[in-house]
C-alpha cells in the first residue's frame, strides 16, 4: 500500500516540479544572454494567471477542441506516472512499459493535432501537419534507442531495465553512447525546443507546437502548457532512468529516498542546463532539415543496436 502511495506521490512531485524545471531552463537561458530573467517560478505564475482567466472558444470549436486539453494533460500525466523518478519499484511502472509510454504520448499528440485542425485556422492545420510529419520519424527513433537498452535487460519494462543497469558493473559501452545521443536528439525534437521548434516565438508561420495551441485560452491553454512542461521533465527523467539511474532508491527507506530524490534533482539540473546551453548556442534549423535530423537520430540508435550485437554480445 505504501509503495502505491509513494508512487502516486512521485508522480505528483514530477507534475508539480515540471513548471519549475521549465522556469529553470528559461532562467539559465536568460543568464546566458546576460539578462536577469523572470525567475524559476514564472511558469507557475503564468499557469495561475491562465487558470484564473475565462476561456474564449472559437465559434466552430467542436467537442474535440474543448476536450483535447484534458485528454492531452491526462495522457501526459499518466505517461509521467509510469516513469520512475526516485523509486525504482513502483506498482505503475511494473504494469506499463516503454511502449505504453510512447503510446500514451502518441495519444496526447493525436488529440493535440486534431484540436489544431478542429477550428479550421490555417495555422492550426499547418502546425498539425508539421507535428505529424516529424513525430512519424521521431517515434520509431525513440523506440529504437530504448531497444538498445532492452536488448541487454531483455525487457521493455523500465523498472526491469533500471534494475539491470544498476546490477551490471559500470563499463563504457559504445551502444549506450549511440543510444544516448539518439535519445537526446529526440528529446529536443519531441519537446519542440531549439533547433527544431522555438517555444517562445510569436511568429505564427514558423511554429509547430505553438501553432496547434494558438487558439487556446484560459484554463485550456494552462493545461496545454502544463502538459508540455510535464513532457519536458518526463523526457529528462526518462534519460536519467535509462542512462544514469545510479543512486535511485531500490528500497523504501528514508535514507534511500532522500538520496534518490536529491540525485534525481541534481541530474535533472545538469540535463536542463545542457538544454539551455544548446538553445543559446544554436539557431533554429530550416524546416526541411528536421527530417534529416530525425533520421540522423534513427541511424544513431540503429548503430547502437549494431554495436550492441557486434561488441557486447560476444564479449
Amino acid at each position: 500500500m505504501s509503495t502505491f502511495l509513494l508512487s502516486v506521490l512521485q508522480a505528483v512531485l514530477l507534475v508539480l516540479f515540471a513548471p519549475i524545471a521549465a522556469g529553470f531552463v528559461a532562467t539559465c537561458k536568460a543568464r546566458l544572454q546576460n539578462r536577469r530573467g523572470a525567475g524559476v517560478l514564472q511558469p507557475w505564475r503564468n499557469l495561475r494567471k491562465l487558470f484564473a482567466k475565462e476561456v474564449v472558444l472559437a465559434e466552430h470549436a467542436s467537442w474535440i477542441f474543448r476536450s483535447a486539453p484534458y485528454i492531452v494533460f491526462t495522457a501526459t500525466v499518466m505517461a509521467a506516472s509510469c516513469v520512475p523518478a526516485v523509486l525504482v519499484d513502483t506498482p505503475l511502472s511494473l504494469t506499463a512499459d516503454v511502449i505504453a509510454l510512447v503510446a500514451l504520448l502518441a495519444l496526447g499528440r493525436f488529440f493535440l493535432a486534431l484540436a489544431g485542425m478542429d477550428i479550421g485556422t490555417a495555422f492550426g492545420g499547418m502546425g498539425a501537419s508539421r507535428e505529424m510529419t516529424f513525430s512519424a520519424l521521431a517515434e520509431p527513433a525513440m523506440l529504437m534507442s530504448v531497444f538498445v537498452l532492452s536488448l541487454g535487460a531483455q525487457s521493455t519494462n523500465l523498472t526491469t531495465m533500471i534494475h539491470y543497469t544498476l546490477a551490471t558493473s559500470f563499463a563504457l559501452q559504445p551502444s549506450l553512447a549511440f543510444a544516448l545521443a539518439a535519445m537526446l536528439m529526440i528529446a529536443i525534437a519531441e519537446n519542440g525546443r531549439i533547433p527544431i521548434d522555438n517555444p517562445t516565438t510569436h511568429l505564427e508561420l514558423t511554429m509547430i507546437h505553438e501553432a496547434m495551441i494558438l487558439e487556446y485560452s484560459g484554463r485550456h491553454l494552462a493545461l496545454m502548457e502544463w502538459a508540455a512542461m510535464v513532457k519536458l521533465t518526463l523526457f529528462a527523467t526518462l534519460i536519467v532512468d535509462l542512462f544514469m539511474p545510479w543512486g535511485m532508491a531500490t528500497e523504501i527507506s528514508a535514507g534511500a529516498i532522500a538520496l534518490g530524490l536529491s540525485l534525481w534533482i541534481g541530474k535533472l539540473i545538469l540535463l536542463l542546463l545542457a538544454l539551455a546551453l544548446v538553445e543559446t548556442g544554436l539557431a533554429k534549423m530550416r524546416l526541411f532539415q528536421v527530417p534529416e535530423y530525425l533520421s540522423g537520430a534513427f541511424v544513431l540508435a540503429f548503430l547502437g543496436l549494431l554495436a550492441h550485437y557486434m561488441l557486447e554480445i560476444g564479449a
Partner: protein
Amino acid sequence: MSYPTNTWFAERLGDAGIRCDYLKGHRPAHMPCLEIMRLEWAHAAAEARRLDMRLVALWAAEAGPNDPGNAPLYAYMAFAHPEHRHVLLRTPVQTELPSICAHYIAACRMERHMQDMFGIRITDLPDDRPWIRHEHWPRDAYPLRSAFDAQRPLPHEDHGDYAFVRADSPGVYEIPVGPVHAGIIEPGHFRFLAVGEQILNMEARLGYVHKGIERAMQGRSAEDGLRLAARVSGDSTVAHAWAFAQAAEYAAGIEVPRRASFIRALLCERERIANHIGDIGAICNDAAFTFMLQQMHRLREQMARLNRRIFGHRLLMDSIRLGGVAQDIDTAAAAELAEQTERIAREVEDLRAIYADHPSIQERVVGSGTVSAADALDLGLLGYVGRASGHYPDERIEEAYPPYDEFKVAIPKGKLGDVATRVWVRFEEIAESSRLILAMLRALPEGAIHTDWQAPPAGISGFAAIEGWRGEVAAWIRLGEEGRVDRYFVRDPSVINWLGLELAVRTVPVPDFPLNNKSFNCSYSGNDL
C-alpha cells in the same frame, strides 16, 4: 549651395521630340519640374527608362494657386539618374491618365493609390484593384479632392472581398496571415499560396494603418506640418523630418547654417545605426538566435538613452526644425557622442564575429530569399535592400546634399541579394555611419544652429530626397496662402521595397518568411500614410 539649372533630362526629352517647359514656381533648380503634355506622359516614362533612370515616385495634386490652366488636377512623376540627379515631370489631368506600368513596375501601386485617392482613371493599368481604398470605403469618396469633407466619418459600406491572386489547383492552399499578428508588429495582411511548405506566391495587402497624413497635412502651418511629417514612420523620424524640412527650405529659398546640417546628418546617421542594430538582432531572433537580439537590444537602448539626454527624445523626434535643428551640442555632448559611437561600433564588430562564427545561424541566412540584380533594377529597390542586390542608389552620394558634399560616403556593394547579404550590408553601414559621425564631430563647424523660417509666396513647390536608413525618402511640398501647406507628398522607401519582399519569398518555404520579412523590414505606416 545654389546649383545651376539641371537641363540634362529636358535636353534628352527634346531629342525624343517631347516638348517640355520648366515650371517657374518650383525649386530647387537642380531638381527641376518639367511640364509636358498628357499625350506624351507614357512616352516620357519610356524615354526615362531608356536612359536608365530610376522611378522615384508618382503622385497627383489638385491645381495650385499658380496653375492658371483649366485642369483641375496635375499628375507628377519623379525620376533619378545616378549622375544627373532628380527631375520631376508633371502634366495636367482632367479625368484620365495613361499608365506607365509597362516601363516601371513599381508605378502600379502608386497609380492605384492615385486612382483611389483622386478618382483619376488610369488607363491600361494591368492591375486595377483598389489599393489603399479598403472594401468598406464608399465608392465615391476621394479623400484628397478638396470637395471631400475630411471632418465627417465615412459611412461604412460593404464591397465584398479583395480579389487576391488565387490558384485553382486543389493541391494549393491559402494561408492568410494578419493583419492582427501574434507579435507586436505593425498590421498588414499577407496571403500565401503554398504547396506543402513551399511558397508559390505571396501577396501583401497593406493600408491598415492609413492615417490620412496627406490630407491632414493640408492647411497646416509648415511648423505643424513638420511635426506630422516626423511621424510618418516613427522609426525613421529624422529622415522624414529632414526631407520635409529640406523640401520646404528649398521652396522658401532658405539656406540652412552649416552647423545645423552637420547636426542633422549626425542625427540621421545615429538613426541609421540604431535601426540597423535593432534589425540585426531581430533577424537573428526570427531564427531563434536570441542571444544576438538581447545584445543588440542593449546597444540600441544605450543609444536611445543618450539620444534622450542630449537631444530630448529617445527616437530623436522633433530634433529637426525648419531652418535648422532644435538642439545644439556642446563640447561635452560631442565627446560623449564620439565615445559612444566608437564603443558601439567596436561592440557590433565583436557581435558580428559571433554571428559569423555560428554555422547554425549562417545556415539559415545564406541563400534564403534572393532577389536578383536584374529584378532589383527593374523594381528600383532602395537602401540596404537594393544594396544587397546590386542596385546602389544613395542620395548622400547622388544628391550630395549638405553636409555630404564634404564627406565621401562609402556604400557596401552586395550582389547576392539573400538575407545574409542584407545583414552584411547593415553591418557595413553601421561601421560606415560610425566613421561618418566621428568625422563630422571632428569637423563640426561653429555658428548658428538655425535661421528664421520665412514662408515663400503661395504656390511655390519644393522637392527633396534624403537618404534615410531604409533608403531614399522623397518629399514634395507645395505651400499655399500664409505659408500653409497646400499639398504634401512623401514616398517612403518601403513603397518600393515591399515589392522586393514579394519577389524574394517565392523561393523559400513558409517558415522562412518571417526571417525574410525582417531582413527587408519595410514600414507599414510609411507605406499606408
